[in-house]
């Protein structure tokens, strides 16, 4: 049992002790560290906002995640749910009602106490359509938003339209907001604009281990220790240990690696295999340590444009018909040299995929689906069966006699993806398929895929935030907002998409975890067979930290290195800066 009542001691903040009952703090069981010091981390882009409701970009979420807390948290290492601000919860027998008991005596980082009203207010903010929160979809179950009722000052009831298998996980990263600071903005419908980067620090408060200290545009954002944080270590010392976290703006991965190597930053996260190798080759002993965490949740894939009609009008109707032929996509899949991609692009620090669920997702991957071995014979056979033929110079021609030319778009800024596209180009050459690789700006790629539908194939990557398949509902449901290969369907266009719809909806409401796994295994089979996207590889999560950083326990879930920022500490000697 990890949750224990902490003994009220001298460390309690004056405000909380003045209120009478001793705060119900969570005791964590990591190594006891030394307080003090600062940690420097480089962000790849500038955060857009500090508003948990409106944040969509990863930089904002990296920062906000350190400043806020949720009711029930997913432990990044065990990938299971653990109590956070909720000390306990019970589920009704029909699986539709959750009764949540809050910890007592906690305060926001400005000292204002937390109670059930804040939680009710928080759900209202996330569910209000005016705020356009990306998390809203998750809180709409069976077509209806969840209903949150206050039972008393510390108890709440949550009611859902239908049983929801992953309900506990949905509370993760749903930051509890301070009603006393944001209620006015919410009432006036301008909550989405609140807590921008220009907001003075006293007007921002959260329940996370750190709070805003200062922000210097285009340079740095500094968080300081939150003295009211709700966790203690085994010795009863109030967390976090660190005095400050400094987020520097370092726009490219290469620059981040250079600054890490120079000792200007203390952590690197999600770096490429090549940079990882450079760092490990040039590591002076005792300077930093690097960890290859194995495959994460990111997977890259070759996406085919299966749209009927859409925003693009003419552009879409001009797409060749063979893109829609399953046999063609299967032929492409078996012609690809996935181990070659792993070796050449990722120096072996990646895993070839046979399903869209990467092996890092141990609970959900369908182990029966391995990557198909490369076979040009099989590819030719599939193409002949699909009615293709070969011209005099070995050029592949479709049933109508037109040469087969495929354009692959990908993000120019992402060197591994451009390299993979070049490998695919070479892989398909022996089949007589002419491939053009068109590196574009990332936004242009997304615009073509999501809006204009003006592309043949795209090499992209996705990383789900959580291991549970529910986090990818929008991708797999034929009506989903990110059903990449065929958007805006009112009815499932194909039988297999219809089956996937049914399976995904069933796993959503089934409480039996084995039955859910069976559903999702079948989804993976259907995708591997029909290949609207061809899964390619899943890169390893590669991280590093300066030597001497205690409790450094990187995880493949987001945020890989800062998820336990409250426990990190500097062992002796603390780095001087």
């Amino acid at each position, binding site marked *: 049992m990890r949750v224990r009542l902490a003994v009220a001691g001298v460390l309690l903040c004056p405000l909380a002790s003045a209120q009478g009952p001793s705060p119900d703090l969570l005791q964590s069981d990591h190594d006891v560290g030394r307080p003090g010091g600062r940690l420097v981390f480089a962000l790849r882009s500038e955060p857009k906002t500090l508003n948990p409701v409106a944040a969509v970009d990863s930089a904002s979420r990296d920062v906000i995640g350190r400043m806020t807390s949720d009711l029930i948290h997913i432990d990044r290492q065990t990938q299971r749910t653990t109590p956070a601000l909720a000390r306990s919860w019970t589920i009704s027998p029909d699986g539709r009602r959750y009764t949540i008991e809050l910890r007592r005596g906690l305060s926001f980082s400005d000292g204002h106490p937390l109670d059930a009203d804040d939680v009710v207010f928080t759900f209202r903010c996330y569910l209000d359509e005016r705020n356009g929160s990306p998390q809203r979809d998750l809180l709409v179950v069976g077509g209806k938003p969840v209903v949150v009722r206050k039972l008393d000052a510390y108890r709440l009831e949550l009611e859902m339209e239908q049983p929801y298998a992953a309900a506990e996980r949905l509370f993760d990263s749903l930051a509890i907001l301070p009603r006393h600071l944001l209620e006015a903005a919410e009432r006036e419908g301008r909550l989405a604009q609140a807590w921008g980067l220009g907001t003075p620090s006293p007007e921002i408060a959260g329940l996370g281990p750190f709070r805003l200290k200062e922000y210097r545009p285009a340079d740095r954002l500094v968080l300081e220790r939150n003295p009211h944080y709700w966790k203690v270590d085994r010795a009863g010392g109030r967390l976090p240990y660190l005095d400050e976290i400094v987020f520097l703006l370092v726009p490219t991965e290469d620059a981040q*690696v*250079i600054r890490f190597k120079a000792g200007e930053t203390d952590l690197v996260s999600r770096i490429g295999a*090549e*940079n990882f*190798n450079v760092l490990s*080759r040039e590591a002076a002993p005792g300077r930093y340590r690097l960890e290859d965490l194995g495959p994460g949740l990111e997977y890259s894939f070759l996406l085919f444009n299966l749209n009927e009609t859409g925003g693009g009008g003419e552009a879409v109707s001009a797409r060749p018909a063979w893109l829609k032929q399953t046999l063609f996509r299967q032929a492409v899949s078996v012609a690809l040299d996935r181990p070659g991609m792993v070796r*050449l692009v990722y120096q*072996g620090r990646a895993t070839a995929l046979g399903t869209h669920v990467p092996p890092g997702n141990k609970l959900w991957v369908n182990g029966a689906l391995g990557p198909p071995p490369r076979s040009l014979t099989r590819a030719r056979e599939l193409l002949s069966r699909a009615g293709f033929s070969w011209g005099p110079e070995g050029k592949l021609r479709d049933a109508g006699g037109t040469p087969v030319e495929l354009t692959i778009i990908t993000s*120019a800024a992402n060197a591994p993806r451009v390299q993979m596209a070049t490998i695919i180009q070479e892989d398909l*050459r022996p089949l007589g398929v002419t491939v053009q690789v068109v590196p574009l700006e990332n936004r242009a790629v997304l615009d073509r895929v999501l809006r204009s539908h003006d592309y043949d194939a795209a090499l992209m990557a996705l990383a789900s935030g959580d291991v549970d398949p529910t986090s990818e509902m929008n991708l797999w449901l034929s009506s989903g907002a990110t059903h990449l290969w065929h958007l805006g369907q009112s009815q499932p266009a194909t039988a297999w998409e219809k089956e996937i719809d049914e399976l995904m909806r069933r796993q959503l409401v089934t409480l039996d975890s084995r039955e859910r796994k069976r559903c999702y295994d079948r989804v993976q089979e259907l995708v591997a067979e029909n290949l609207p996207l061809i899964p390619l590889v899943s890169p390893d999560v590669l991280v590093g930290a300066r030597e001497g950083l205690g409790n450094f326990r990187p995880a493949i879930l987001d945020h890989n290195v800062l998820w336990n920022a409250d426990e990190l500490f500097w062992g002796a000697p603390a780095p001087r800066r």
Partner: protein
Amino acid sequence: MKGRLAVGLALAALATVHLAALCAGFLAPYAPLEQTRALPYAPPTRLHFVDAEGRFHLRPFVYAIADPSGAGEAYQEDRRQPYPLRFLVPAVDATGAATTGKRLLGVDEPARVFLLGTDGLGRDQLSRLLHGARISLLAGLLATVLSLGLGWLLGTLAGFYGHGLDAVLMRSAELFLALPWLYLLFAVRAALPLHIAPAQAFLLLVLVIGLVDWARPARLVRGVVLSARERSYVLAARGFGASDFHLIRRHIAPQTLGLLLTQAALLVPQYILAEVTLSFLGLGVSEPVPSWGNMLAALQRYHVLTSYWWMWVPGLALVPVFLAYYALAEALRRRAGPAAL
């Protein structure tokens, strides 16, 4: 005397480089797109004359290399079996089928001869350098022809006819000089459709460089023409009733020749550099077709920059080409006099 030697050397160097590019198909040991996926970032293959037993061989030989770690970091030679270099071997195309041509040198499989190493996809750098030279050097030459041709025509017209035409042409020349051409190219490339084959991209590149940069030669030519048309023999010819076309062809154009040659020698390296810059930025000839610019683009990545020196070779190749062109330009300028600057 000293100057003449320099010009001779420069000309010889340029002839060599251009001839090598022209014969890339014969000189390159491999097809430029051929990927040896087991050998990414392989260092330049060592040529051996003395074998493991200490015997000397007149014909150089190589060893097969392999990387037991699979990460492309630690290649080792397998010294058990030497593979002698072979000359005039039959060429194979990218699919492995034999073609009619011959290649200067090769080596039996499984050994490979990568005299300048390989890139991240296991493609031979030397072969790509030679094939890339075709594109980079040709882009420089074609763009020079285009911009000088246009510059000469407009400069001559402006200088010869003067007045309104002169004013219009020279003001637009100033406009073109003031254009931020790099951003213009960004805009042009962004406006183009997705389907653009490497050959089209190349022509477009040449077209844009050539068309944007006519203004400087045009102004220089105009100056020469302005002074030439007032010469007494030109006035005399005009008095005898010579047509404008005759005057330009017989008396004025020859005056601009020295200037044009000097300008050409200056502009070619400048335009080669323009191609390299644009391809480096991903705006020129795109992968997998090699050009010196897109080969250098790999250096944008930190680990390539720091780990594999042979990836710099296209950049190093630019140096002698530039030196030769500038030596030539200097010699031509001396011959043509101060007007040719």
